[in-house]
């Protein structure tokens, strides 16, 4: 007998019974799960739009900006917005819009590199730790890894960056690495808890019963099933990195002159805060938008990957 698999979470079973009352209703009713999969939530849409906006600014800056980043206009210094300079100019007469566009590059680069470091190091640590935690003889290894993780968690990103800046010279590179290292524990924790959950599941038991080795289980079963959680963590960590980079540059520990960065723009605008607050407004606004965008995206993804919606089709 040949049965068509029915729709998502279909309540029907292997019944191909020809009941007159039922034959009319051949197509599956749409179920709650199917619709919620298709329905995008609003926070995710807003978040994605903001992220696309920042990404667009950075990409366009490679091709076109209104002025060069170090192009100065001695006559038009400290101007408010005008058709020639929509966002105004700074104290050297540099175009603020140009700087905001260039700044987006640094922001995104820091985010990508820092999150990349944290994700690539933190996630495997978490998975390995969870695997040891499940072995009767490996519990202490898990304990050691996780306590080391907790110690790292106790160091704020800022402190690490100050140390890095003191040891190496202050710059975008050391700042990115410092922010990335500080984000490792978060990924390790998320990956560990997700892995523990997956390892406790019946399908992993089934895999073990069919002779799968643990590394294979980690790749085939654990990774795909914790990917959702890790992606959510990445988008939140991205927002934190953006903020951390701006903070570090503001303190002079991050991006150095003359590279345009939102944090440095804020710092330079400090002395004009009472006379030209718009100089601080634009970089501040874009930092806020970037952080908000990635956080909203993370929230939206969290809803999307909610384990409760995922657990079983019912």
């Amino acid at each position, binding site marked *: 007998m040949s049965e068509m698999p029915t729709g998502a979470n279909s309540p029907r*079973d292997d*019944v191909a019974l020809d009941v007159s009352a039922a034959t009319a209703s051949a197509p599956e009713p749409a179920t709650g799960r199917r619709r919620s999969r298709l329905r995008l939530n609003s926070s995710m849409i807003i978040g994605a739009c903001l992220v696309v906006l920042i990404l667009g600014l950075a990409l366009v800056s490679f091709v076109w900006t209104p002025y060069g980043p170090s192009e100065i206009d001695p006559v038009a210094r400290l101007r408010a917005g005008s058709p020639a300079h929509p966002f105004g100019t700074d104290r050297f007469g540099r175009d603020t819009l140009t700087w905001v566009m260039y700044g987006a590059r640094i922001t995104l680069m820091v985010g990508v590199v820092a999150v990349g470091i944290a994700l690539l190091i933190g996630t495997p640590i978490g998975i390995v730790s969870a695997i040891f935690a499940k072995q009767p003889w490996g519990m202490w290894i898990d304990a050691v890894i996780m306590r080391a993780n907790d110690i790292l968690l106790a160091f704020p990103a800022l402190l690490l960056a100050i140390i890095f800046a003191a040891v190496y010279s202050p710059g975008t590179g050391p700042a990115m690495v410092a922010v990335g290292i500080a984000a490792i524990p978060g990924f390790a924790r998320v990956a560990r808890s997700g892995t523990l959950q997956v390892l406790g599941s019946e399908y992993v038991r089934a895999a073990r019963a*069919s*002779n799968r080795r643990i590394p294979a289980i980690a790749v085939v*079963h654990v990774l795909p099933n914790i990917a959702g959680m890790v992606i959510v963590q990445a988008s939140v960590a991205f927002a934190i990195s953006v903020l951390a980079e701006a903070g570090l540059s503001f303190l002079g520990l991050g991006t150095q002159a003359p590279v345009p960065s939102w944090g440095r723009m804020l710092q330079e605008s400090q002395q004009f805060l009472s006379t030209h607050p718009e100089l601080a407004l634009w970089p501040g606004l874009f930092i806020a938008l970037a952080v908000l965008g990635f956080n909203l995206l993370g929230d939206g993804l969290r809803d999307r990957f909610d384990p409760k919606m995922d657990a079983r089709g019912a």
Partner: protein
Amino acid sequence: MPENLLEVRNLTITPAGAEVPVLDDVSLSLAPGERVGLIGESGSGKSLTALSVMGLLPEELHAQGTVSLQGHGGNLLEANEKTLAGLRSDIVSMVFQEPMSALNPLMRIGDQIAEVLRIHGRVPRAQIPGRVRELLAEVHMPDPDSARFAYPHQMSGGQRQRVMLAIALANSPRLLICDEPTTALDVTVQRRMLDLIAERVAAVEAGLLFITHDLAVVAGVCDRVIVMYRGRIVETGTVTEIFTAPRHEYTRGLLASSDLEATDDRGRLFTLKTALDYAGPRVPTRDSSTDANRATDANRAADGQGGAASATGSAPLIEVSDVTRVFKGRGLFGRRRSDVTALGSIDFSVAAGERLGIVGESGSGKSTLLNILSGLDRPTTGHVRVGDIRVEAASSTALRALRENLQIVFQDPFASLDPRMRVADIIAEPLVAAGVDKDERSARVEEMIAAVDLDAQSLRRYPHQFSGGQRQRISIARALVTRPQILVADEPVSALDVSVRAQVLNLLADLLEDYALTLLFVSHDLGVVKHLCSQVIVMKDGQIVESGATEDIYANPQEGYTRRLIAATPSLADALAATG
């Protein structure tokens, strides 16, 4: 004619965006004090009907029609939340399927019962503790005085369901809705729970709407039965009418597939499709002909394997001697807790080709035993031999060899398949582990998917696109793809609807013959074991209380526990005999 307690008229529910209603023109009524069973497989709309009466429909579902309750004028579907809140618990209340998730894990159960009393304010505050104790005593909770202070996780499933019943009856509702209240419970507990529900409903003279997929359960509890299929009511009648003269094709199919005593010419259970030949439940008059049939059946199966068994020598395929498993109690911060003996000196052996049933309630050590047999756990003492592998001292290479030869079908078809893998990859997994190359893998996967009666297109889909019965077929395909000698089935049908159960059991029986398998079948359901297994062992608290040929044990149980188990197993015939 007195006004009906519950009156549902033309209830239709169509999910937004769907063309076909999930509930189509459902009308039913319940007289005061009447007990009605609502029967159907999962997805037939039973629970949605109940939720509409409670006013608990999910927001995105919009219901048309009328639902009216005695004591409330107007349509419940249009009532606002405040009105509904007043009705719930006072006039209508509900017992849910899964008592663990229906109770708040962080509240003492006494407080949870008191909460319902307090919110409705019918009982003066000072009398609430007394009333709570009274309610717990009424549901026969052992030691109601101290039970009040227990948390849900400290209780057994049956006790939790008693608490749910106490909460539901706290404000003496006119109508009690039970949604599969015993599906998550063991057979013996189920029997007691059903009796208790019947007793309490009679005591408070409430109406009862009892939702279940199992005909055998409903018979003892209800006067009248409503059968639902695909969102429609297909048949209504008294229990006797439905059982003896079902009019609708689906009812007949459901009846036939519920009956584990009746088999067709091939010795297979009736399914919805083969139900036409079904003669109706047999009233238990030691009908020797069916027993004889089954005995010869079992013998035939044993004979079929006889050759293979003698070829490998007369030693049994699986030998378990004096196995114990003690779990070291380790409390928080290394505090000593008492050790738990999950298994105490287990002895048995299984010959090649034999079908052994392992029966017991949850907590009897069945799962621990399976884990030890499959090398997922090691015994504290004792010896286990499977084939020529000594499991308790096996190296990891030997364990791998063991697992190629012994495969497991797990209980929960929803949890045992990785939701992120395609069916083809799920079934191929044991082959990947065994190092079979890609071409042969896909050939064998296709062969297996055909063997479990799923079409080849299924291979590209994900588990969530399948129903419970189909998932269990996938699970069976995965277990058999390496051509093991031994198949271990851990309650493979207890999570399935009755109508699907027969199909999966028939499939298992077919495959056992085709692949010449030795079967270890774990279940709490004696009816299922009786149908499939030639030998049975009965376990209780980690001990084997009785073992022997299935026929002997059923015909002549030696132990009180076995007798209780047999008596508690719901069967159509008994149910029919009881109603007369």
